[in-house]
């Protein structure tokens, strides 16, 4: 086992354990729980069976397996950041509504 595989394996185990714990505490919905299982599981699978990435990338027309992994990861990261951005904007609006409601109730 290479040092990278040990590292990736640890990341996978910790990620999946955390997802399980949050799911048990009902802090994750079914959909997000499955999503994180796939992401963290994928990290482990790619580390231990790297040839899999090439088998997927070739039919898609991407030269090397690792390129496909990098492309997909960046796309996913952008998407998650975008979601967080939208959620933040909504939180800002909600906070303002709360602050306004408090100001008006006191009067």
């Amino acid at each position, binding site marked *: 086992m290479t040092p990278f595989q040990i590292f990736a394996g640890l990341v996978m185990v910790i990620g999946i354990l955390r997802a399980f714990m949050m799911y048990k505490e009902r802090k994750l919905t079914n959909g997000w729980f499955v999503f994180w299982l796939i992401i963290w599981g994928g990290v482990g699978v790619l580390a231990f069976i790297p040839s899999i990435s090439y088998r997927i990338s070739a039919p898609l027309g991407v030269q090397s397996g690792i390129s496909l992994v990098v492309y997909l990861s960046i796309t996913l990261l952008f998407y998650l950041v975008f979601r967080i951005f939208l959620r933040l904007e909504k939180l800002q609006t909600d906070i*303002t509504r709360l*602050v306004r409601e408090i100001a008006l109730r006191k009067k």
Partner: protein
Amino acid sequence: MDKGVWIVIAAFNEGKSIANVVKSLKDADYSNVVVVDDGSKDETFDVASKAGAHALRHVINRGQGAALKTGIDFAVREGAQAIVTFDADGQHRVEDLHAMIGPVLKGEVDVTLGSRFIGKKSDIPFVRKLFLKGGVFMIWLLYGVKLTDAHNGFRCLSRKAAQSIEIKADRMEHASEIIDELRKKRLSYREIPVIILYTDYSKTRGQSSWNAFRILYKMILHKFLR
């Protein structure tokens, strides 16, 4: 003065000037003055209350747009027929109020907007003028509304306008947002000449001209994302 007229002031750390502003309005017989203390760290709230205003308090700072909206909601709840947004730092003149409110109370237009670029002459610093005119151009480009002065905080809204205009922008972008709402809700408006006083105090209080870039960015974002 008509009891249906309400003056709304958003104030953030304006403890030094707010008493004078409220007092000058009261002296001119505008009895309904709402000061929304937007999470100030100084004594703005107490000073405004003592001066005789209806003081509301945002427990944390949410920005001028948010504070004005709170004040407008309050005035509407209290039965206002015309609502004026007025600056806390003494930039707006009580003498201009009559001309601003008249057309709205008479039902000639839904909204009046103060303009420092028509008629009376304000002593506007050059850089500020450049940015203001840039703002006017951007309002025309993005919303198709032609004004002479787009970011003048002096406005008068009829009850109907106040109820239909939605201010979602918490911070300074609300000025452009209101213009956009005028167009979307098909409200009639007129620009009224007003004089803006650029005192040393108001210059230190007002926003930096560079903030214009942040506002522009937000305007574009809202235009295309909402």
